């Protein structure tokens, strides 16, 4: 099930919201009627909420892949028990052992389900043998929830959080449907308090609703229409150099709006249910260098690798050669995290090279804004061409065609038609990827009189967006999120 679908918007989500608030309220009433004290009532209500979240999240996950529901449940139980074991362990060595177990199990899950066939393919290529492929379907969201689980056991080992003794609460954290399948990667420390004690208010719900609807519109209206253009490009019988650049820019915008939209919806839903998830994007296409780009793009992943790989390896407080290794490891793994294919690994290593260059040539971080922005976007756009290719051969071909080495005309009639058709969408997406809209809205909200108009217009705009998005969905567009394959 995807967020941008009729079953989710008009069946699943209303059902979970109704059950979440209504049943927990009724439980609270029952406990009050039974004259239980406030703390007991609070705990009972919270338990009910977490249970409903857990059950619906398992339904959400099993809806797409029933067989892997057992994997999800098994992961919840396994990490829950590891957490208890770490907490109970008397010695540091024993704690380390259990953390090690949880990390090995997590990485083994990824190795088997995500990377096994990649290893087999390369092994066969190197050795000439024909080891059979496992051909296992990739469990949706495995890269996200395994990383979330590892963050729990590692932070528990480090003493950054308390153990979660309630398996329902823990299961709700691991499987929470708002961020289960495409992030942000929510660390246990960030939601621990809310799992055990959270409040709701209409203010939070209204803010969450706004964030969700805006995210929905970004996904359906912007990202999915760009995806259509990308498909048209791939099916085109009249490619041209310009069409290749249109594709590259379209995909760069598509992946941003698709992914950030999902994060918006996850954060919005989190607010409705009483959680505050971390931001995942901060207008990355406004960056003036690659270092800045990765402080703004998929921040939850960057921070995860920083805190659980880079810093434990020594970070930048080491000699240059060691720093080089640390950085290489992080970006190699970042590339691999995105997919079991060499083009993803090379994409990660592209950023490694840029970061090393920026370290060796500090002036690169101090370029004039226009130059810095151009350099960054060029790296990003070309990187995403590599990222989106099905294999290295296609990546090479795409990049060659972009620079005129594909024996293609500069322009074609199809290119002109689709440039005309998608021109406004490109403009909207480019403007939307900057902070211009947000800053303008904030400035308007600060002006007396105008802020009232904005407050009145806001629900009207949200209703229009909701109705338009519903129209797109009913029209039969199928729009899976790009990051599902991770």
């Amino acid at each position, binding site marked *: 099930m995807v967020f941008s679908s009729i079953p989710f918007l008009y069946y699943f989500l209303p059902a979970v919201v109704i059950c979440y608030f209504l049943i927990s309220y009724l439980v609270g009433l029952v406990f009050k009627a039974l004259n239980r004290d406030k703390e007991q009532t609070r705990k009972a209500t919270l338990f009910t909420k977490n249970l409903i979240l857990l059950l619906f999240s398992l339904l959400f996950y099993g809806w797409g892949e*029933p067989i892997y529901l057992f994997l999800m449940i098994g992961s919840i139980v396994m990490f829950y028990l590891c957490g208890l074991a770490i907490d109970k362990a008397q010695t540091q060595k024993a704690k380390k052992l259990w953390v090690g177990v949880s990390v090995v199990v997590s990485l083994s899950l990824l190795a088997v389900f995500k990377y096994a066939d990649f290893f087999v393919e390369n092994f066969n290529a190197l050795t000439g043998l024909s080891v059979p492929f496992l051909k296992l379907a990739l469990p949706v969201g495995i890269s996200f929830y395994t990383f979330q689980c590892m963050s729990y056991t590692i932070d528990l080992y480090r003493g950054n959080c308390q153990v979660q003794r309630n398996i329902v609460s823990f299961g709700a954290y691991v499987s929470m449907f708002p961020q289960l399948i495409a992030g942000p990667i929510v660390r246990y420390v960030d939601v621990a308090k809310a799992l055990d004690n959270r409040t709701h208010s209409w203010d939070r719900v209204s803010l969450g*609703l706004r964030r969700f609807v805006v995210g929905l519109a970004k996904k359906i209206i912007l990202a999915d229409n760009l995806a259509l253009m990308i498909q048209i490009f791939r099916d085109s019988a009249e490619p041209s150099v310009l069409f290749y650049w249109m594709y590259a820019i379209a995909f760069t915008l598509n992946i941003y709006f698709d992914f950030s939209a999902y994060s918006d919806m996850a954060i919005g839903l989190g607010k409705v249910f009483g959680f505050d998830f971390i931001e995942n994007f901060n207008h990355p296409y406004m960056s003036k260098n690659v270092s800045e780009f990765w402080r703004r793009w998929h921040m939850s992943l960057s921070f995860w690798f920083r805190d659980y790989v880079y810093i434990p390896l020594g970070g930048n407080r080491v000699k240059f050669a060691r720093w080089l290794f640390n950085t290489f490891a992080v970006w190699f793994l970042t590339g691999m995290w995105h997919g079991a294919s060499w083009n993803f690994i090379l994409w990660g290593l592209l950023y490694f090279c840029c970061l090393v260059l920026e370290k060796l040539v500090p002036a690169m971080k101090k370029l004039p804004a226009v130059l810095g922005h151009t350099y960054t976007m060029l790296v990003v756009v070309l990187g995403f061409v590599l990222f989106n290719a099905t294999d290295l051969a296609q990546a090479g071909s795409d990049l060659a065609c972009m620079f005129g080495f594909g024996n293609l005309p500069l322009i074609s009639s199809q290119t002109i038609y689709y440039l005309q058709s998608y021109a*406004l969408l490109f403009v909207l997406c480019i403007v939307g990827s900057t902070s211009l809209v947000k800053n303008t809205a904030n400035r308007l909200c600060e002006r007396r009189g105008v802020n009232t108009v904005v407050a009145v217009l806001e629900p009207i705009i949200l209703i229009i967006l909701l109705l338009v998005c*519903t129209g797109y969905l009913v029209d039969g567009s199928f729009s899976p999120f790009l990051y599902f394959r991770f």
Partner: protein
Amino acid sequence: MNKYIRWIGAAVVVLIWVALTGAAWFGSDEAYSISERRDLLQWPGDPNPSGYSDVSKKDWPGLTTETVMDTTFMQAFEDYTTEQFPLRDKFRQVKALFHYNALMQKDNNNIYVVDGYAAQMDTFTDTDKLTATLMTFNRLYDQILKDAGCDIYTAIVPDKNYYLAPEYGYLSMDYELMLSMIHGRMPWAQHIDLTDCLTYKDYYFTDTHWRQEHLIPVAQKIAAAMGNTLPQESDFTKELIDAPFYGVHYGHAALPMDPEQLFVMNNDLLKACTVTYQDRTGKTVQLQGVYDYGRMVSSADLYDVFLSGEFGVITIDNPNATTDKELYVFRDSFGRSLTPLLLQDYRKVTLIDPRWARTIWAAGEMNPLFNLDSNDDVLFVYSTSVLNSDGIV
């Protein structure tokens, strides 16, 4: 103050969401989509037949362990919720209007509307499909037509996009390539060029087909090439079919378009003809006259008044023909509205659509249909859109 306005605004958004949810959960199911001409998936145990005998039923897989584990139930549920969403056609209109007017897209689902005419863009010329079709035509010629010594003609019908695309800046297939392939690989046929007989205004606003009442010049050109009597406009009476005509693009475009009027060209000769075909159950049906007025009620597509619709083999017996000649027409749906205008010189006309006669075709049982002699004529009438999409095989 603004905080309260925001809260009230959020409440309004939630109310609308709840209203749509309630309508989705508790609203009654629609059996059929007029705009899309198809049955809609209904909740199991609540089958409500659409009443159209010529459209297929959609089945629900049911909730079982198997359908859950292989996710067919989930997929069916998702299809059901999308197809039965309340005010579905209105929401599709909202999307189409937004797509065209807000996003300034030039087409919606490859359908565009200019000057009130909806057309489908064909951006890709499927030469493989066309080659397969031409090979089939050549096989037909070798097996049946070659030894008969009769005259063979082709009349390729340009689709609406042929005229609209260059004038309004839309994409189209490579018509020149298509026509040159046809001419090159059917050297045994005389090709009748129809491109100068038509404009886009000779087609329906919301349908791919051409208007029969505008086809006299086309019929005259074909008749002249075949050495027949030229039909005149005055030979016919223009009759309005008293039912709204929702063309095939009406649903695809999803724009606010009105249904249109469909006219047929009739006269005593056509009324005296007998039309014979086998329906989908294999039963032989005979009708008096070439227009099946019963289709106004029984068919999802009003265009089916022309010779009752899509059947593999249709024969027309004309007791008032001026000669004993027979005409064999290999055709798609465009041929159904054209053929009545060519009838007057033929005692019998046999229309063959291989797409709907696959079993006969595959079994090689086409031969008995043909009783050709050198006086008879064979005409291939195919539209460029069909040749580029379905083909005939």
